């Protein structure tokens, strides 16, 4: 059934609260879980459900993302017909205006053979079965289905996300924003299911009337005209829209149960492969409760950390509650607590860096400059 479905990944995430990691890359390209990038989840969820045609709409600054996506092969999207298409030629920031990018590439939508569209962003991390959702959408004969999750700690998490107001029949009455003033919220996952024709209609309406600059705002303001229903997702969900949520979500991956659900064997998460050697542990190392990437050389102590590939943790170094991105070198006897380092960071010998569990310190990337 999902062959009849087009995937549209609209990278319109607000990056204001995660600037430390998005200076040189889009949010969708942020490395996560020691091995993946944020966009891998939505891409894998779509392809696992059988979607064979996916268009990614993004702003121009995306070399890192293009490099990661290459020809779509890791997600089985390097196809003769359909496959992966990347639209990143726009100078407007999709966070403010995504209609321009869609309108400029409207041919892609007209030419698509599929009848339905799954329209999503990338920053909602989950493992979701779209097959069931599309089935329910078609059965309900509504115009749009919005996927959401019932959250009980909305005062602590999912800040800035959509908050749906739903009646007892599951109809979406209005869409607000979670500002953390309530514990319970129906957090919108930014996932919309609709007919392709409707999406084209929305884009054309927005362009011709000038009333809205984002597909989402059209939808929020047309809830009286359109029949919009909701679908409750009950699995694990993390939203990566701030440094705080990135750090918290990453540490949650050290939990066995969450890890197993997210990286399920039935619906695996795929990513770009590389040819790294195995990780090497020396006689002096102490590693506890951590995720370690291939190609690492661990000579020191690592506790409750996420270490990406090709990282060297030298003798005597101590890392606690840290996230170390790829290709870093942690010098001898350095001590890092609650630290996030971007890739290619060199931490000198005996350096001590301390962040806090709610205020992690980020060491930004600058090719091989020693800190």
């Amino acid at each position, binding site marked *: 059934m999902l062959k009849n479905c087009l995937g549209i990944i609209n990278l319109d995430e607000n990056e204001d609260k995660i600037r430390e990691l998005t200076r040189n890359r889009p949010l969708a390209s942020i490395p996560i879980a020691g091995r993946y990038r944020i966009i891998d989840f939505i891409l894998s969820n779509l392809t696992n459900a059988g979607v064979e045609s996916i268009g990614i709409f993004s702003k121009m600054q995306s070399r890192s993302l293009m490099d990661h996506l290459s020809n779509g092969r890791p997600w089985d999207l390097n196809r003769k017909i359909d496959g992966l298409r990347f639209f990143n030629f726009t100078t407007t920031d999709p966070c403010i205006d995504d209609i321009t990018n869609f309108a400029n590439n409207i041919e892609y939508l007209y030419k698509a053979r599929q009848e339905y569209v799954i329209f999503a962003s990338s920053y909602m991390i989950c493992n979701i079965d779209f097959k069931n959702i599309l089935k329910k959408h078609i059965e309900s004969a509504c115009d749009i289905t919005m996927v959401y999750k019932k959250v009980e700690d909305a005062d602590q998490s999912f800040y800035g996300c959509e908050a749906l107001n739903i009646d007892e029949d599951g109809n979406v009455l209005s869409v607000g924003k979670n500002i953390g003033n309530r514990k319970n919220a129906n957090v919108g996952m930014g996932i919309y299911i609709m007919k392709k024709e409707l999406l084209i209609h929305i884009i054309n309406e927005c362009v011709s009337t000038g009333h809205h600059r984002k597909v989402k705002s059209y939808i929020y303001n047309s809830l009286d005209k359109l029949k919009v229903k909701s679908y409750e997702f009950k699995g694990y969900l993390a939203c990566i829209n701030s440094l705080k949520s990135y750090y918290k979500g990453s540490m949650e991956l050290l939990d066995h149960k969450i890890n197993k659900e997210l990286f399920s064997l039935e619906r695996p998460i*795929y990513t770009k492969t590389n040819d790294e050697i195995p990780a090497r542990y020396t006689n002096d190392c102490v590693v506890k409760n951590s995720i370690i990437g291939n190609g690492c050389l661990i000579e020191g102590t690592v506790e409750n950390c996420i270490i990406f590939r090709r990282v060297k943790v030298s003798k005597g170094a101590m890392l606690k509650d840290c996230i170390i991105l790829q290709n870093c070198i942690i010098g001898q006897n350095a001590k890092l607590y609650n630290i996030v380092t971007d890739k290619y960071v060199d931490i000198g010998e005996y350096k001590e860096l301390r962040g806090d569990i709610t205020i992690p310190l980020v060491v930004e990337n600058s090719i091989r400059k020693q800190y």
Partner: protein
Amino acid sequence: MLKKEMVAMILAGGQGSRLGILTKRLAKPAVPFGGRYRIIDFALSNCSNSGIDTVGVLTQYKPLVLNSHIGIGSPWDLDRRDGGVYILPPYQEESGGNWYKGTADAIFQNSSFIDSYNPEYLLVLSGDHIYKMNYDNMLKYHKEKNADATIAVIDVPLEEASRFGIMNTNEDDTIYEFEEKPKNPKSTKASMGIYIFNWKLLRRFLKEDQNNKESSNDFGKNIIPKMLEQGMKMNAYSFKGYWKDVGTIESLWESNMDLLREDNELNMQDKNWRIYSENHVRPAQYIGPNAEVKNSLSVDGCEIYGEVDNSVLFSGVIIGKNSKIINSVIMPDTKIGDNVIINKVIVGSSVVVRRDCIIGDGKEVTVIGGSQDIKAGSIIARE
């Protein structure tokens, strides 16, 4: 087909019977090695890194896993517009067909494949050795010396020389005699089973060899001695570096253990000569809160909850709580339960070892064949 200067042929048809239960379901070159490779990855990567883009892989014994692993050659950059990697099994013709009778026969039967590229030179390799080598340097040497054939040799300790095919050479490195496993070796130059021939010349010798009913159609036993006999100019190319024939359980285990030594000459971390392999995506490895990992290798997909000491773990291996893995090699997707002791063992792929087992006695290498289910409380040594 476009002309190539040199075509490589990798002999990957053997069973490798001395690896016993490990080759019950797959050919020796497909046996897992080093945490994320298969033995043939070394020959394939060496070809690709040396600039050789046309490689034939001669298969015969149980090639399913090997074929699936090699595919169209993309991991080794051998999925090319002109050339690339070709799997070459024995095939039928109008006059019938034959299984490969020997290494020389295998090459002979694929003469038309080689002819289609019209190469000057043919590189013959075995698919079961662990080493890194630039074949382009060997070709340069072969051309410089104007040789008819060049055989790569490596210096072995005199006490071990009687285990190898030994080349006896003159001052100028030309070979005057070849002795298979000599009792009193005259030199320490052991043949590595890596040859570069002038193709047209070799083709002649292969054809003649076919007419000899007594011949085993083997390079080492028949072709090389015949070429020597007929006064061909044969040179020995000295190779310095790590090289291991992992044809026995003991040598396979040792070679995996060698990767754990800091001074390992193989230098797997050299980015300029990577060993490529098929890549399967798994989550990054997880080391548990009570785990202890010392002097070991581990990869994506592993979950370690117990102790791992001086061992090599492949993808998808799970080590249960309170278990101790010592001096061992655990192949892909094997699950080790709680309270298990594994000491100096090679455990095959997709094995389930249930709780409270004791495997291996730390003396000689024990082997557990792939896909077995070892029930709880078992005590096994040697197998």
